[in-house]
Each structure stands twice: as C-alpha cells, then as structure tokens.
C-alpha cells in the first residue's frame, strides 16, 4: 500500500518534471516553429538567477517563481532581437544558431560562476509514508506543473492575447493580414517561452547541483517531448510527457535509473518512427 | 483493339469524413490522350495522386498494363516507365538544365547513353541556349518545359501530367501543346487541367469529375455542350 503510493507519487513527479522541462520549448516551437536549442541553458540561467537572488537575501520562493522567470525572459528577449528574428522561417538555421548560443551561455556562466557545482537546499522537508521516505519538494514540483498547465490553458482560452496566439499558431499569415504584427507576437512569445524555461530551471535547481553545463541534461528530453507531442501545444505537451514519464519510471523501478533513461529515449525513437507528425498530429488534430 | 495501359477499379479515397475520390472506374488505352477536368475540389488531383502513388487509396485498385500497382511507391511506378509531372514545378533548383534531364535519363540508361539522350531532348525542346543554366534562375515557363523534358527523356509509355499549363504565357502553352502531341506518338497521356482553352486545343476525349466521381466521359465537343457539365462549372446544382 505504502509502496504503491510512493510509486504513484514518483510517476506523477516524472511526468510533472517533463512537463516543466518542456513547457518553454513547447511554447516557442508551437507558436513560432523555432527550436530553441539554448533552452537548457535558459533553464541553467534560471537556476543561477535563483541562487544569486537567494544569496542576496531574497525569499527562495520569490526568487524561483518571480525573479528567475523575469531575468531569463529578458535575456530571451535580447536573444530574440539580436539573433532569432533574423532567422524566422529557417528552421535548421535557428537550430544551429541557438545551439551556438547555448555554448555562448555555458561559456559566460563558466566565466562568472566557475566550473564547480553550486546548489541550494530544498526548501520543503521530506516526510515518511510508512517505511518510505518521500521528498516533499516533489509535491511542490507536481503542484507547479499542474498550475502551469492550467495557467497556459486559461491564457490561451480565456484572454485576447491567447486568442491571437492561437490564431498565429494555426495561420501566422492570416494573423498578420488581420493586422496583428507577427514581429510583436513573436517577441512576446519568445519572452514567455524563455520565462517558462527560467521558471523550470529555478524550480528544478534545488534538486540537482547546478553547473554551467547542466542545460545539456534538459535539452534532449525537452526536445524529444516537444517534437513527439506534435503540433498541439497543451495536448501534445501533456500526452507526450505522460507517455515518456511513465515509460521511464516503469523501467527505472523494474531495472535501474539508467535503463529508465535509455527506455525513454528508445520510446521516443519508436514513437517518432510510428507517428512522424507527433502524438497530436495523429490523434488530436486541431486542438490546442 | 489497343492494349489498356491504365485502369482503376472502384478507386476511393477518404480523408476523415470527406470522400475526395468516390468509386472511380477509369480506363485508358495505349496511345490515347485524355484530359481530366472538373471544378475545384472535384477530386481530379486526388485521383492523380492515387494513380501516381503519392497517396494510397482507401479502397479500390490501380492497374498499369494489367499489373496491380495499388499502394506502390512513386519510384516503383516510375520505374515501370511511367512519366509523372506534379502540379508545381518539381525540379532540382541548384542543378543545370542538362544535369536535371541527365539524372532522369540515367535511371534507364548508362552514363554515356544518358548524355546522348539528354542532349537529344534538349535539342527537341529548344533548351540548348540555357542547357548549362541553373534551374533556380529560370522563368516559370522554362522550368515547366524542363520538367516535361525530364518526363520525356525516360521514354515513358504512360505520361501523367497535373496542370502542365498552369501559370504559363500563351506562347509557352503553344509550345507545351506541341511537346505533348509529340509525346502521344509513343505514349498514352493523361492531363489534369482546368484551363478550358488549353483543353479545347489539345483534347479529344475528356473525363469530367464532379464531387469525387466521374460525371461524364465523352468527346470534348459533346462534353462542352453538355448542359450538366455547364451547370457544374457554373456552380449551379442541377
């Protein structure tokens, strides 16, 4: 009984962290058809922003949930103005340029923070369920992810900006014809996407020690989750995070964490081979 | 009695709830020139894509020279000796006219024969002056002509053309008509087209598509004067 509860929590946590890791990339890809390979480094910077802010005496939750997203969002805005906007419509070129940017950010972070692991302790204590110890912070991550999905849904469904965003997702030329400047929409989208990456990096930072190269651990998973999810933003994100999260946890429990990771990757290869358009390209056409 | 080169039995293609091609039975004899016409959305292009292997039909069969080719890949169908031209010019932009045509010839001939065949076609289509120019730098009409050259150089016995006259000038269309007539000497030709003027100048038998199905199949003059066809074209439901 206790064991099954622990397993349930672990499963939820695996799915939630995948959602969190991929959300920023999904927004940018879904809206702009741009793959931001510097996404992992945006997360890394979110982590460093949190640690720096906490070091300056800011409350840890404020640092994670407010400061990190804003700082990273602004960095994203600068990146969009300087680099990305020159490359719209050139999918592969944007991938290459953002890959270059990711290396630049790793370099800068190394010069500022050094090539050593820094970290902050988890602000929520663990507790015991029967014989098992549960990390209380995992709950926090599950809650944040659920809140994030609900918030994204609410913004896309309920606000004017969301309506324009959904329009742009389906037909960017039509949105432009209706008088909405794609330039501004893309700018805002990239800001939001980067802020989400910053948030994810900040929230996950207490769980993993932070090094300038930690972004690399995220980007591949985020990339796979988003591409496998397919064209629909929220449905794609949730469905592919759920499938990959479950697969990796099942194998982690059954064999080992490494095999869990490998299983996730193999699942991704099989999934893309079967459904080259992603899960939502096949099953949820035209939803968001 | 000439051999049947292309035949479909109950060809049906559905996209979700839409039936784009509905139980089409079609027959083409060797050496015949046939135009497929119909208003937008009549199912001509879907039919074309099913026949060329770009789509696999939901139901029904496609036969070429008696062989069942349903569900074959385009390259397998082309390997039989079927020349295909899609709606938008499909050419290799960074390669020269000669290289484009040579690549098509190389599929069925060895290197030096392919050169000979390519030169011959370039002469026949009067592409000589631009033979070394990259396709990306050519005008639309010239690109269409090169693509016909790509089709012709392979000596096909069946040629399938999707809107070959689209977006071309009157002079280009005349030249195109000439080339197509030349093709019919050795091959059966199917042309999907919307341009009535062009059809009148080239066709004998036309097949009219309407709502995915064959509406009528007859000589071009009789089809043009058919009140039903006129109604379909003018958008009235009779």
């Amino acid at each position: 009984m206790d064991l099954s509860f622990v397993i349930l929590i672990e499963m939820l946590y695996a799915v939630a962290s995948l959602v969190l890791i991929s959300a920023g990339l999904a927004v940018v890809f879904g809206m702009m058809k741009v793959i931001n390979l510097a996404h992992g480094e945006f997360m890394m910077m979110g982590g460093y922003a949190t640690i720096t802010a906490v070091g300056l005496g800011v409350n840890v939750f404020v640092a994670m949930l407010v400061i990190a997203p804003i700082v990273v969002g602004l960095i994203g805005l600068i990146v969009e103005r300087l680099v990305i906007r020159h490359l719209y419509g050139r999918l592969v070129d944007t991938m290459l340029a953002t890959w270059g940017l990711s290396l630049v950010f790793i370099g800068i972070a190394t010069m500022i923070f050094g090539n050593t692991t820094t970290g902050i302790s988890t602000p929520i204590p663990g507790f015991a369920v029967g014989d098992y110890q549960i990390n209380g912070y995992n709950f926090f991550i599950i809650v944040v992810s659920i809140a994030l999905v609900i918030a994204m849904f609410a913004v896309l469904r309920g606000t004017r900006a969301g309506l324009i965003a959904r329009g742009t997702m389906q037909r960017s030329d039509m949105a432009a014809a209706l008088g909405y400047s794609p330039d501004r929409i893309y700018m805002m989208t990239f800001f939001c996407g980067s802020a989400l990456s910053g948030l994810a990096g900040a929230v996950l930072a207490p769980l993993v020690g932070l090094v300038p190269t930690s972004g690399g651990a995220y980007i591949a998973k985020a990339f796979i989750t988003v591409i496998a999810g397919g064209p629909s933003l929220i449905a794609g994100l949730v469905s592919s995070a759920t499938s990959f999260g479950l697969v990796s946890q099942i194998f982690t429990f059954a064999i080992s964490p490494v095999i869990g990771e490998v299983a996730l990757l193999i699942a991704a290869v099989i999934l893309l081979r079967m459904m080259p358009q992603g899960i939502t390209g096949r099953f949820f056409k035209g939803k968001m | 009695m000439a051999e049947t080169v292309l035949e479909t039995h109950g060809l049906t293609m559905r996209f979700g709830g839409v039936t784009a091609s509905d139980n089409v039975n079609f027959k083409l004899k060797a050496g015949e020139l046939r135009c497929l016409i119909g208003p937008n959305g009549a199912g001509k292009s879907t039919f074309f894509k099913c026949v060329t292997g770009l789509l696999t039909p939901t139901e029904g069969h496609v036969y070429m020279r008696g062989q069942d080719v349903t569900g074959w890949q385009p390259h397998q169908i082309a390997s039989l000796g079927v020349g295909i031209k899609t709606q938008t010019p499909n050419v290799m932009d960074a390669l020269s006219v000669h290289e484009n045509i040579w690549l098509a010839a190389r599929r069925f001939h060895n290197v030096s024969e392919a050169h000979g065949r390519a030169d011959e076609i370039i002469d026949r289509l009067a592409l000589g002056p631009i033979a070394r120019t990259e396709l990306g730098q050519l005008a639309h009409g010239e690109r269409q002509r090169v693509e016909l050259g790509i089709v012709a150089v392979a000596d096909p016995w069946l040629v399938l053309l999707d809107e070959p006259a689209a977006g071309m000038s009157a002079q280009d269309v005349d030249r195109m008509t000439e080339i197509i007539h030349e093709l019919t000497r050795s091959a059966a030709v199917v042309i999907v087209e919307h341009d009535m003027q062009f059809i009148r100048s080239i066709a004998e038998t036309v097949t009219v598509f309407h709502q995915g199905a064959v509406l009528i199949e007859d000589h071009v003059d009789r089809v043009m004067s058919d009140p039903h066809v006129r109604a379909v074209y003018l958008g009235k439901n009779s």
Partner: protein
Amino acid sequence: MGRSASQDVLITLVVSAVLIWVMPLLISTYTLTVLVIYGMLGLSLGLIWGFGGILCFGQAAFFGLGAYTYAIAAINIGESTVPMILAVLVPAVFATLLGAMMFYGRLTDVYLGVITLVVTLILFKFVNSTAGPQYVIGKARLGGFNGIPGFQTLNVPGDPDAYVWGDPFFYVCAVALVIVFLLVTWLLRSSFGRIAVGIRENEVRMGLMGYDVAARKTVLFAVGAAIAGLAGALFANWGEIVTPNLFSLGQSAEIIIWCIVGGLGTRLGPIVGAAGLAYLKFMLGQQSMVDNTLITGLILVLFVLFLPRGLVPAIASVLSSIFGRTKRRPNASRTRRARHG
C-alpha cells in the same frame, strides 16, 4: 565539374604532398595528427549533409562507435589490422540499420535531427553506465565513464610487435585522409554522387524519376558512418584511450560547427573547418582569459547569421571575382536548401 577527373586527382596529390611535407615544420606532428583525424570526421558529415542533405546531429555516435569497436577488438585480438576493418564496418552496419529505419519512415529535418541526437544520447548513457565488472566483451571491460585504456595500438599488418606511432602514425593518418578524400571525390563524380545531389535538391522529383530515394540515402548515410568510424579508430590510436565523451553531444555539435564554418556543399570546407577550429581551440586552451566554449559558440552564431555559406565557398567566390572567372557562380540558395534536407 570544371576540371577533368585526372586533373583533380593530380592537384589533390600535389597539394597534399606539399602540405604533408611542410606542415610538420610548423606544428608538432602529435597535434597535426589529431587535426587530420578531425578533418576526416568533418568530411564524413560534410559528405552526407552537404551533398546528401542529411543533417545528422549524431555523427559523433559513429565516431565513438568506431573508436570503441577498435579498442574492444584490439584487446581481444591483440593486433590492429582486423580491428581497423571492424571499426569501419560496425558503424557502417549500424548506420545502415538506423538509416533504413529513418529513411523508409520518410523522416526529414527536425525529426531526423531528433532521432540521430537521441541515438547518440542512448549510446552515451549506456556506455557511461558500464563501469561495473559485469560489462565485458570478450577480454575487454567497457569501464563506463573511465573508458578503455591500454589496448594494442596500430601495428604493421602481420607483425603485432612493430608499432606505428609518432611521426609514422601521422603519415599514416595523412595518407588515409588523402585516400578518403579521393574516394569521396570519385563518389561525387560517379552517378551515385550526382543522384545523391539530385535527392538533396528535390526528393520528390527523384522519386518520380524512378529512383529509390530511401535506399540511396541509407547507403550514403552508411558511407558517411564508415568514414567517421575510420576517424574514430585512428583517434583511439592517437589518444590510446577511448572514453564515452567521444559520443557526447558536444562532440556532435563540434562536427556540425566545422561543416558550417568551412562550408557545406564543398569537399574541402569541412576538412578546413575541422582542422582550423580544432587548432584554434588548441591555441585557446593555452590561455584562460576567455572561455573556450564561448568562442566556439560565438563563431557558430556569427557564421549562421553573417556567412551561412561558410569560408571555403566565400573565399572561392572572392578569388574567382578577382581573377574574373565566373564559370561556376556559387549560389546562396544552394547551401540553404542543402541544409534543409
């Protein structure tokens, strides 16, 4: 092709002979050897990406696979000739299977990128986790993140005690690169190569002409992997140790950067890009003012933004405009299209 085949071969031989003679006077052969090996690795991606339009994010996988195959086989066999052959064959076979799966599934662009990247990660994660004593192939322990040291290095075929190392090893690598370069030249001049370029330009058209596009892409992909595998085996001999880092994404990224900087759609570009950037990195490694990664990243961003065709085509067009010859105008759209597979 402006020049005839024999002229091309002659020029290649003369230029490379001069370089092999002059370069050791300027740079130590130890460093040169690795530059040559990276040049070969760059060429392997330059072939499939620049001429076949296949953007592989995991060329490092084949490099690593070649290196590991060599190391494992060398430990088990105790000489180097068969391991060298295996180091070319294993990546080629692996690429054939992977390529067939991808190309018959009609995956392109991003999806191709994801799958090649994921496969590289799988290999990296797997090899990294094989530290335990239970992971053994024959007599060779995989060693996880520590890698495999202490295998038999290159020897004269038939005589396991006659090691080839130091200067002679450099000459072996340099000659290997020249041979591979000539083979690639021959391949691109052949019908197969020209058909590959046709497929890069327009897959649908080539299919409608009757070419089996998937099969041809698979073969080209395997050829690229074989070259990368050879480079990997030579690298293993140079470093005398193989580690999981050979499979890392960073390594894959670097190969892509070499191709972009050197110039896609040329044979020389990726080699020049690889050797040049690797040497730059080596020089930068001797200072600690600016971080190395930062400069690599900056170079990539600046090239994508301002010189997307790469150095070699740019220099070639400058030269031809100086000498007033306009026989082959390099076309900006060519590299763009090539990249989009």
